[in-house]
């Protein structure tokens, strides 16, 4: 392992890490919002919500991200819709993550005792405020472990986006392996960068879960 090679590669890896974080962040926000909407729609039994979301959840969870990205990037242009690789990556991550986030939120919502929302309604809160002030805070706290596990899963899933030519960490590593044949340096940096991104997320998530547990009652 040549230290000078590692140093020379560092700027490109930093730039690629930014690109990885950008789609991971946007994908995470997108899938959280999508998941929340789906869970709430199911919770309130909006008409038609169950069958539609059930189809989406099964489709999203039972197809690999690579296949979803291939469809978005190489398939949609055949239908006249040409999205750039960054857009495809975020849409793909949102499509994949949305179902996992929905399941996390749903389990959180279902874990909140029904008498909580019934009591809130009986005290004169409307359905909206009851959800916002009473049910959701408890549900989201309960869903946190599942949420953080999904977040780490989604960040790791970004590692396949180089197949649609998105310049993430793997794309840059493949560049250096293919052009300079410095395989060990390129792979060592790849591992190091993913650890630097994911270890703080894992440790932060663990700390956050410990804090949130204080909000629980009765256990």
């Amino acid at each position, binding site marked *: *392992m*040549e230290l000078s090679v590692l140093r020379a590669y560092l700027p490109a890896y930093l730039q690629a890490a930014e690109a990885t974080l950008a789609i991971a962040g946007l994908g995470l926000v997108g899938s959280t919002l999508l998941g929340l909407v789906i869970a709430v729609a199911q919770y309130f039994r909006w008409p038609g919500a169950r069958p539609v979301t059930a189809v989406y959840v099964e489709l999203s969870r039972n197809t690999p991200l690579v296949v979803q990205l291939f469809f978005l990037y*190489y398939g949609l*242009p*055949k239908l006249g819709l*040409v999205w750039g690789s960054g857009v495809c990556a975020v849409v793909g991550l949102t499509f994949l993550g949305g179902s996992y986030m929905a399941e996390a939120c749903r389990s959180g919502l279902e874990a909140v005792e029904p008498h909580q929302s019934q009591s809130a309604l009986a005290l004169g809160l409307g359905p909206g405020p009851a959800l916002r002030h009473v049910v959701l805070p408890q549900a989201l706290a309960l869903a946190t472990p599942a949420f953080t596990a999904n977040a780490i899963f989604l960040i790791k899933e970004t590692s396949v986006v*180089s*197949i649609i*030519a998105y310049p993430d960490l793997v*794309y840059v590593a*493949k*560049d250096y*392996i*293919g*052009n*300079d*044949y410095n*395989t*060990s*340096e390129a792979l*060592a940096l790849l*591992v*190091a960068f993913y*650890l630097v991104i994911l*270890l703080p997320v*894992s*440790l932060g998530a*663990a700390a956050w879960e*410990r804090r949130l*547990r*204080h909000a*629980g009652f*009765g*256990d």
Partner: protein
Amino acid sequence: MSTIGLATRPRRAAASTLGLVLAAACLIGLAGCAADSDSGPDTSAAGSSPASATTGSSANFRDVAQIQADGTIRIGVFSDKAPFGSVDAQGDYVGYDIEYGNRIGQDLGVEVEYVPVEAASRVSFLETGKVDLILANFTVTAERAEKVDFLKPYMKVALGVASPESAPITDVAQLAGQKIIVVKGTTAETYLASQYPDYDVIKYDQYTEATSALLDGRGDAWVTDNTEALAWTTQNPGFVTGIASLGPADTIAGAVQKGNTDLAAWLNNELVDLGKEDFFHQDYELTLKSVYGDVVSPDELVVEGGQV
């Protein structure tokens, strides 16, 4: 809650600390391991002893006697680069490189097991001993020659630029500011990176992905071997090879793992013998003629007996 909480919290903290320490240890181990192996290739690149060519992952090639004893030679080829190496509707490998590979298997008296490779993985497949020989339209370059042992060439090639007929690229200067498609690990990528570092290049892993991207209008031009550009634009109406010869003229040759002199010597002798019967001209007639038609004459591409 409080007793359970108090009992579990320190344990969880200890567990995550342990995880952190283990992860750090792995990283250091990885770095150390890679550092060891890298002092190997640098010194042995001078070519002292093949057995120590690379530590750990290497000295894993098979010589001619071992290949014949095992009864199978593993050859890395393209599976998506017609007419050189591709898979037909029956699932069989076909193409110019495959004809050559079949003949090698026949003359060695062994079965041929074809292994599909990507452009960027050709060197690693040899280095890790996954294949004995690469016959995947492999252009000879100085950088690659440091990592693998090339045989005598069997084709010659330059770069070509394919672009839509409606907006043809006929001069390399026109590529400035355009989106240029290349396949990772090809000479086109290296050439553009060294000569035109400011050009906007989009890189794909597979040839099919690159051509899909060109068809979908994701780029303004595709830079690749001129053989490939000519073959593809002949088959795809609406696209032209506006530049048929760009960059230095290169040769294409098979390659074996660094230090496998026994297999290399056998294959080079074989190549000279094949030249005596004009094998590659027959190969051209069989696999390339239908693609190139009158656009190219065989002598512009084919090299017999390693004589460029």
